């Protein structure tokens, strides 16, 4: 069937000659730091977002300068695993070509900010020399595949990491555009890449056998979770695999989930966050083909006319999960089994040292909002560089923007511990439980979608709330708190116990009642509240929680039981049952 739809992005893809567009010409134009509007859409498929520093737009116009255009580059890191050498490479690239900071994303990727156009090609080439890439890190394709970094079960981790890598490779776009544009060495010799054949015998198009020339209708995100940890937030993603174990370390298969997603549009109730459905169970051998089939069904049934309704979650709402399963099974040529039992306990990280059964050590450190950079007081970037120079294991980016220094041999432990202490990173997680469970997206000043502050603001807001928690005696009680500057949901705010979504400068929708391990969507508690009023609004609720909670009751569950908000069943109900709150301000 034809996949050309009416939304503007579909036309851009159609005319792009497999994501080439006029990117090369745009790079050669040294008069502007910008690319053409259409090319800005296409570079996303290459892992590159054009942004500008919105704080200084006005000032620059007065100075006769165009906006401070620069590019965010997202590095695809399947499963979030990086070698020490790769860490050193990323660190160097951040300093030489970007703004000096390394951002660990909510989807286990590295992100560079502030790369100017004239340095894009060199930066991408150097990332590839480090054996990472940026292809499909953004755009309407399958993006970075996440998996639980799970240091305790090394065999299981090896298996899920392998699957993450296989899915990532298998669902990578096959177009030669990426290599032509970014990796051409100047001699005209193109770097040749070989990919495995599609698993389903239906070639959409020789240049792009799985996706076809229009790719997917919208972004597509895949994760693998290993219970009891739901750190990857499996319900928030388009495609998920929940590892089902027999004994300690044997994966017998995966429960497949489909149709999760966070993004919505303010004021449009046809858009909503949605938790993924369980589709069925597959064996490890079937996992990749099931993934390919899900992608193909979405490719052909996703809404290409209305971009805000294009994600898989809306396709499933429209088709119904049973019909969707049927389509997937037809393509696979086999039936999925009934989902197996599993239990999640939380979606956070376990900080500090742990030792696995092979005697190796792992250190999980708190990285506030995933920002690795140096300040006068806290030289995290330098400290991690020094560790990378001696570390023989690996680094793992967590889905909560934290970092695990993994696989440290008993002999190396003392040396790394000393470095952690020297650079004040050994107590990185000696913070309130609220802060350790906080997450914010990038937002202002660089994100073009941002309506309000996020990562520059949440740390201060947490400090305000900490005072209330201290008063209430809840400093060590974990509550998930997440903030995004716009409703697209990069920090997955709709499954937090306390969620903030930017509405306008200094104003946020306040959501409550998300499930502590990501199993329930939240509900709007108060629309458009001022950031300055948030602490006052939350204060009575927190004191109420401290006084009246049941044993082990989570804050999110408590807000529902106490009637502050109604529980949200699933996405369709997200905008329903809003009750005007009695606010303390």
């Amino acid at each position, binding site marked *: 069937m034809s996949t050309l739809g009416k939304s503007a992005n579909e036309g851009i893809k159609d005319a792009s000659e497999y994501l080439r567009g006029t990117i090369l010409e745009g790079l050669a134009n*040294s*008069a*502007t*730091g910008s690319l053409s509007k259409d090319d800005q859409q296409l570079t996303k498929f290459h892992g590159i977002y054009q942004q500008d520093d919105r704080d*200084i737009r006005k*000032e*620059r*116009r*007065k*100075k*006769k*300068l*165009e906006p*401070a255009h*620069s590019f965010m580059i997202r590095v695809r890191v399947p499963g979030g695993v990086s070698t020490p050498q790769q860490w050193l490479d990323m660190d160097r690239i951040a300093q*030489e070509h970007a703004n000096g900071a390394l951002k660990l994303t909510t989807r286990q990727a590295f992100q560079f900010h502030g790369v*100017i*156009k*004239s*340095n894009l090609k*060199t930066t991408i080439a150097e990332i590839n020399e480090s054996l990472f890439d940026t292809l499909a890190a953004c755009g309407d394709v399958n993006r970075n595949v996440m998996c639980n970094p799970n240091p305790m079960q090394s065999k299981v981790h090896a298996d899920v990491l392998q699957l993450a890598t296989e899915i990532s490779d298998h669902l990578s776009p096959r177009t030669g555009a990426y290599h032509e544009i970014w990796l051409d060495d100047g001699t005209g010799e193109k770097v040749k890449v070989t990919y495995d054949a599609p698993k389903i015998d239906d070639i959409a198009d020789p240049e792009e056998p799985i996706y076809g020339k229009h790719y997917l209708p919208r972004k597509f995100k895949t994760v693998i979770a290993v219970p009891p940890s739901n750190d990857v937030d499996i319900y928030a993603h388009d495609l998920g695999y929940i590892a089902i174990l027999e004994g300690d370390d044997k994966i017998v298969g995966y429960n497949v989930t489909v149709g999760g997603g966070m993004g919505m549009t303010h004021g449009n109730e046809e858009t909503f966050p949605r938790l993924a459905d369980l589709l069925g169970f597959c064996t490890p051998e079937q996992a990749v083909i099931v993934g390919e089939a899900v992608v193909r069904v979405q490719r052909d049934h996703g809404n290409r006319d209305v971009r805000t309704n294009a994600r898989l979650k809306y396709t499933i709402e429209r088709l119904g999960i049973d019909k969707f399963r049927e389509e997937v099974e037809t393509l696979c040529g086999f039936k999925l089994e009934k989902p197996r039992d599993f239990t999640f306990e939380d979606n956070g990280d376990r900080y500090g040292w742990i030792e696995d059964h092979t005697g190796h050590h792992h250190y999980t450190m708190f990285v506030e909002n995933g920002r690795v950079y140096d300040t006068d007081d806290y030289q995290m970037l330098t400290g991690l560089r020094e560790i990378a120079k001696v570390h023989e294991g690996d680094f793992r980016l967590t889905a909560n923007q934290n970092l695990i220094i993994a696989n440290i041999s008993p002999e190396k432990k003392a040396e790394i511990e000393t470095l952690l202490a020297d650079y004040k990173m050994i107590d990185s997680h000696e913070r309130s439980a609220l802060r350790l469970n906080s997450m914010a997206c990038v937002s202002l000043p660089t994100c073009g979608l941002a309506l309000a502050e996020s990562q520059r603001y949440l740390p201060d807001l947490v400090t305000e709330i900490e005072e209330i928690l201290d008063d209430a005696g809840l400093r060590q009680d974990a509550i998930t708190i997440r903030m995004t500057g716009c409703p697209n949901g990069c920090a997955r705010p709709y499954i937090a116990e306390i969620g903030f979504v930017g509405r306008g400068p200094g104003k946020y929708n306040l959501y409550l009642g998300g499930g502590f391990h990501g199993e329930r969507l939240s509900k709007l508690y108060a629309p458009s509240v001022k950031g300055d009023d948030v602490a006052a609004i939350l204060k009575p609720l927190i004191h109420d929680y401290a006084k009246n909670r049941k044993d082990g009751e989570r804050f999110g569950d408590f807000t529902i039981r106490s009637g502050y908000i109604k529980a949200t069943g699933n996405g369709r109900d997200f905008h329903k049952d809003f009750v005007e709150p009695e606010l303390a301000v």
Partner: protein
Amino acid sequence: MSFPENSPLPPERQQLAQQLASGLPADQAAWLSGFFAGIGYSGSPAAIAPSAAKQEMTILYGSESGNAEALSGTIQKAAGKQGFKTKVVNMADAKAAALAKAENLLVVVSTWGEGDPPDSATAYHEEFMSDAMPQLPNLKYSVCALGDTSYEHFCKIGKDFDERLSKLGGERVFDRVDCDVDYEDAFDGWLKGALGAFPQAGVVADIPASVEIPGSVVYDKKNPYEAEILEKIVLNGTGSIKETLHVEISLEGSGLTYEPGDSLGIYPENRDADVEAVLAAAGLKANEKLGDKTLAEALKTDLDITSLSPAIALKYNKIVEDKKLQALLDEKDKAELKDWIWGRQLVDLLETYPHKGWTAESFTGILRGLTPRLYSIASSLKAHPDEVHLTIAAVRYHTHGRDRVGVCSTFVADEIAIGDTAKVFFHSNKNFRLPEDDSTPVIMVGPGTGIAPFRAFIEERAASEAKGKSWLFFGDQHFSYDFLYQLEWLDYLEDGCLTELTTAFSRDQKEKIYVQHRLAERGAEIWKWLEEGAYFYVCGDATKMAKDVHQALMDIAVAHGGKSPEEAKEWLGALRKEKRYQRDVY
């Protein structure tokens, strides 16, 4: 012979003239032409001895910034009044060997950088100094040399001409004068003396260095216009280490005009802090009287209290008589002294070689006048009627334990606000002009503040809807912060007033990239443009950039024009002669 239609003569005089001219022998016609020229200058034929044919005075000039050129005009007027038939020769357009025909010669020529001739006079100077020059036994001459005492080879080119003319057999009728940057008085004295020294000279009246038109106020260097500052913007974005100002100045009601390529002079004042430091170091009091001003006022507005050069040190030590300093001054090449002077100013000299006996008079006696600074104009009157815009880099640096500044740039940056006025005057630069035919392509290379005249050029060509292609090369440190006038260029590119814009930002990547590298990269296309008749302009830093661009051009002629290095040099010389290669470098 019929009379041209545009003749101002009434019919009856036309008839008379025609009668007089018909069948006139050549020698009589020549005499009459001089006679009438004399009437033209003096208004009365009685002032000229009617019995003798007029002598010819050749006025030879070599000009970089336009000063020598302007002075050649003053000389011409004065010599004409004196009864000479004048012939003004620009070194840019002439052969030195032609001097063999001259009998009376006045030379005014400037010296640039490390003892170099003006850009446009390079070939002339080379020929003049070569063995190919003929002897000049019948020549009477005098030389006025322009220069700047803060440079080592002060007035070197003027000295070259003076000495070589003598060696070639010429007779020096009046001693050469070496003028510093405040040249007016020295020049006036020289002109009066030199003109009087030629044999047939009569009495010469006082000759003003500036031309005055009676009945209207004329603003010029001696009588600057108090212009209001309309706008002042730092063009560099936050994060830049540079501070480049865009300044818009009102000309409303002044009657002043200018052409793209001209410069604007600004009279600065010294900073109070510098005045105080100098007073303290010299042990002098601010309120001492000096003429009708206090010493502090004079130091602030009239005198150069920051520059330091071996020449100043020499004057200084005639009074101070410090043995150590004298030893440095006595050294043959003064290498150690120059080394010490590098990055230092007058106040350092005062502090290092202190002197107890300064008086206001003795101290100010060693100082030069505070001279105006010239800035290449960054606007076109066609685009901004009644306004003139400048692009000024504020100079600030720290050397030898002291913060230092460029006097005029920081005067504009710090001391005058929007709404204030500054003393300004225009300075014409005929050596930096757009091609007359606006369909001629132009290539403009202007990194840093060198961009200024090209903003004027492009505005001018946009306003007059010029048909010619244009290609601008710009460079600075960082793309993100230092891309001067970027939005304007983007607009011009979009509407086609600018055909191409190529940039070089030196500090955005590991290896330094400058405009000359971009020229080399685009060499084939540049050669093509030049083959199509393009004019090539360079503005900005003289010490490195202009030389590197010059070399890049020669390399392009070799690589893409199939020339030998020798031929490339000749080609570039010819390009310069044709005025298709023009520079405004400093």
